[in-house]
């Protein structure tokens, strides 16, 4: 095996070499401000208008999208280019069995998806994913603003990361747009 050591080394090490127990992969890709600039350009302005979803709204959205609405408050920004409404910028999070993903969705003014960017990806094989206190540490006081992570981030091959939950999240957000934001 030694002749192959220049390209592969067989090891047996936990990927969770970071502070939080059981955590495997952690990556911060973009901050909220970076995502806003990338998705709408430098000249756009952002005005925060979080959506508050009462139980009736939650039910309507759930029926329209087939996806359960967990949170009452949805962080949302109206985006303007001068006086013109350019679209909406939404921060959302989805929780899988082992992954917890914070992502941003840019919507055109007419509700079409313009772009999706992952902000934070966390993976854990411990209990932490469904623990709100654990998740809260990655979201700053200003809701939706992830903290900066500085651990060594690895390239990992094998066991595909799922993005099924993101697809469901986007479905839910589009139904939210239809119910709450669509004009007339």
């Amino acid at each position, binding site marked *: *095996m*030694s*002749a*192959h050591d*220049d*390209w*592969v*080394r*067989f*090891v*047996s*090490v*936990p*990927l*969770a070499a970071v502070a939080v127990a*059981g955590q*495997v992969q952690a*990556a*911060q*890709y*973009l901050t909220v401000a970076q995502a806003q600039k*990338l998705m709408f350009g430098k000249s756009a302005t952002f005005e925060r208008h979080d959506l508050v979803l009462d139980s009736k709204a939650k039910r309507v959205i759930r029926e329209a999208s087939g996806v359960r609405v967990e949170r009452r408050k949805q962080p949302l920004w109206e985006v303007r280019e001068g006086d013109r409404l350019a679209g909406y910028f939404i921060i959302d999070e989805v929780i899988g*069995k*082992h992954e917890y993903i914070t*992502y941003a969705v840019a919507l055109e003014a007419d509700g079409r998806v313009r772009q*999706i*960017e*992952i902000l934070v*990806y966390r993976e854990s*094989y411990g209990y932490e994913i469904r623990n709100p206190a654990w998740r809260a540490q990655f979201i700053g006081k200003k809701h939706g603003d992830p903290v900066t992570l500085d651990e060594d*981030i*690895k*390239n*990992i*091959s*094998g*066991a*595909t*990361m*799922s*993005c*099924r939950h*993101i*697809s469901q999240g986007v479905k839910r957000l589009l139904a939210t747009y239809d119910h709450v934001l669509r004009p007339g």
Partner: protein
Amino acid sequence: MTMSCDRVRRARPLLGTLVEITLAGQAESKLHEAADAAFAEIARIHELMSVHSKESDLYRVNNAAVGSAVPVDTRTWQVLNLAAEISGESNGVFDVTVGAAMMARGALPRMVNGLPDRQATYRDIELLPGDCVRLQRELAIDLGGIAKGYAVDRAVCILRKHGVPAGCVNAGGDLRAFGDEVQTVHVRDPLEPAIARAEVKLRNRALATSANYAGSRGFDSSGVVLDPRDKRGVVAGRSASVRAEDCAVADALAKCVLLTGTTSALLLRRFGAQGFLIEEGLPSIIGAEEDGGVLSARALETVAGRFDGAYTNRQSGAMIGNRPGACS
């Protein structure tokens, strides 16, 4: 080169997974611009080759009348061409017509109107000049075993065109590093994803890992691998990793190694690739048995060198085309 300049790391949900692009060596705004272009290319490939979409090239081919020529995008044609090459070299261990069995099993949505012929194989897909495809029998192509790698290759090509000196594109574990920097990649244990069993060094190389993750702990049920020869599922708990120059080749060959284990040594060598298996937590390198000993690193490099620039058809010795990921 060290990655001392600005560094950018982005991720988007594409190709049914999380696609991550890490770039360095230019001003941040330039790197973001390049990443945007690379993501756009991956999104385009996703649209063309998705088995889930009725708008895709794949859907049109799968649902065209037998014997009629269907024009497709050059990229779709290139992927089918490379798939045919690997199918031929592997004697059908790799076969994109496994899509029919995947649909019958419910591992893929049923996206064909006709009834696929059980006897159909990759040989029933005819690739015509002018980027046209003609089917000889009713069948269902699934490019799940190769398109992800191809998308990574195309993304790397776009990034290079933008002048990005170094980086890595990782589509859910199928990845390719470019530039002078050596990238370290950890390969997970297929049953215990929190444990790394191998550490691979990549410099201007791709690595892809395949496993049947269905029914294993974690992740969703999309990772089903069927053997095209007997349409049976691959046992869970085993994973195969292949290193090659192109990610599309690594992706497809990883399926072959998963299915045929150590007997795939010659196949890997034909493509200048190397590989290993992880099973029951234990790794084994592919290549040792075939040669009565372990191949030296130098011998591997020599094999890799011969494949520079184009795939070679070993039977005829003819060059059968440019690498699909090559910049056009």
